[in-house]
C-alpha cells in the first residue's frame, strides 16, 4: 500500500499501528447495538405486517356485510389486547375456532383456500421468527407486542373464514 515514502519515512512506518484503548469499550458498544438487532426484527415486523394485511384483506373480501357466526362467548374469550394464553376459556375458544376454521376452509374454492393458507403460513412464520428472537431477548416488550399482534392476526383470520363461510353452511 505504501508509496512515495522516503528513507525518513521509515521512522513513521515503524510507529505501532495498534494502540490499546485505555478502557474496554465493548460494554458500551454492546449496549448500543443490542436494542436493534439487524436482521430478525425487521423481517419479523415485515412478515407480521404483511400477514396482518393479507388477513385483513382476505377477511374483508370474504366477510363484507356478512353476519357474525362466531359464538359470543368465544369472541369474548379471544378478544382483548392481552388475552391470557394459559386461560382455559381462551384455550378452549381458540381450539373451537381453529377447528371451525379448518372445516370451513375446506368449503372454499381452491384458489381462495390457497391464498388463506399462504396468509396463515406468513403469520406462523412471523410467530416462529419472533419466538426465536424472544428466546434470545425474553424481556423485550417490543417483541412480546409483536407476538401478541401476530396472534391476533391469526385469530382474525380464523374468525374471518368462519364468519365468511356461514351462509354456505346454512345452504347445505
Amino acid at each position, binding site marked *: 500500500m505504501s508509496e512515495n515514502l522516503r528513507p525518513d519515512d521509515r521512522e513513521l512506518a515503524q510507529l*505501532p499501528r495498534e494502540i490499546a484503548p485505555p478502557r474496554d469499550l465493548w460494554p458500551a458498544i454492546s449496549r448500543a*447495538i443490542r436494542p436493534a438487532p439487524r436482521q430478525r426484527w425487521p423481517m419479523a415486523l415485515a412478515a407480521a405486517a404483511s400477514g396482518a394485511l393479507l388477513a385483513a384483506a382476505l377477511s374483508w373480501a370474504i366477510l363484507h356485510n356478512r353476519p357474525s357466526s362466531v359464538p359470543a362467548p368465544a369472541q369474548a374469550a379471544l378478544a382483548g389486547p392481552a388475552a391470557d394464553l394459559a386461560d382455559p376459556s381462551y384455550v378452549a375458544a381458540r381450539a373451537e375456532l381453529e377447528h371451525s376454521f379448518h372445516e370451513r376452509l375446506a368449503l372454499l374454492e381452491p384458489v381462495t383456500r390457497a391464498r388463506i393458507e399462504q396468509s396463515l403460513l406468513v403469520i406462523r412464520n412471523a410467530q416462529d421468527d419472533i419466538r426465536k428472537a424472544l428466546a434470545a431477548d425474553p424481556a423485550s416488550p417490543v417483541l412480546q407486542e409483536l407476538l401478541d399482534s401476530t396472534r391476533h392476526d391469526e385469530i382474525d383470520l380464523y374468525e374471518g373464514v368462519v364468519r365468511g363461510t356461514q351462509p354456505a353452511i346454512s345452504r347445505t
Partner: protein
Amino acid sequence: MMIQGLRAATAVLELAERDNGEPNAVVAAAIAGDLRAFERLYRQFAPTVYGLCLRLTGERTAAEDCTQETFVAAWRALPSFERRSRFATWLHRIAVNTVLNRRRRPSAIYEVATPGDAMPDAVDRAAGPPPVDLERAIAALPEGARQVLVLVGIYGYTHGEAAAMLGVAEGTCKAQLHRARGLIASAMGREVS
C-alpha cells in the same frame, strides 16, 4: 426469511473459501448476526481502530468515542459488507468517516495539541534539536496534514486510497503529505528535504 438464511449461508461459504489472513469465519458469523463473533472482531481490531482514531483526532476521549461509534456503525453496516475489500480496510474506512463526521459536528471540539504544546517551553537552539517526540509532533500537525500523514505514512495506504477515504483529490493528498513532512522535520529539528 428463507432467502435471508440462504444468503447468510452463502456468505459463510464464500468467506470460508477465501484465505487472506483475515478471520473469515468470524466475519461471516458476524454478518449473519452473531454478536459474540462481532465481539471477537472488536477484540481483534479495536487496537488498530483506536490507534487510527487517536492519531486522526489527536485526543483520547474523542478517539474512544470514535472507536465506539465505528464499531456500532460497522455492526449496522455489516450486511452491506461486500467482501471485495479486506475487513480491516473496510473498518478503517468507517473509522475515518466517523472521525470526519464528528469533526463536522458543531459541538465537536478536539483538544489537539498545538505546536506550542508539543514543543518544550524553552528551546535552546544552540543545544541542538529539541527533544520532540514523533507522536507529539504528529498530533501537533494541522488537521489535513495529520490525516494524510497518518493514513499514508503510518497505516500504509496509497495516496489514492487515502484521498478516497478523506474525500479529497489525490493531488491535495500529496501536497498535504509534503506539508506534513516539512512540519515534522521542522518540529524534530531536522533539515527539510
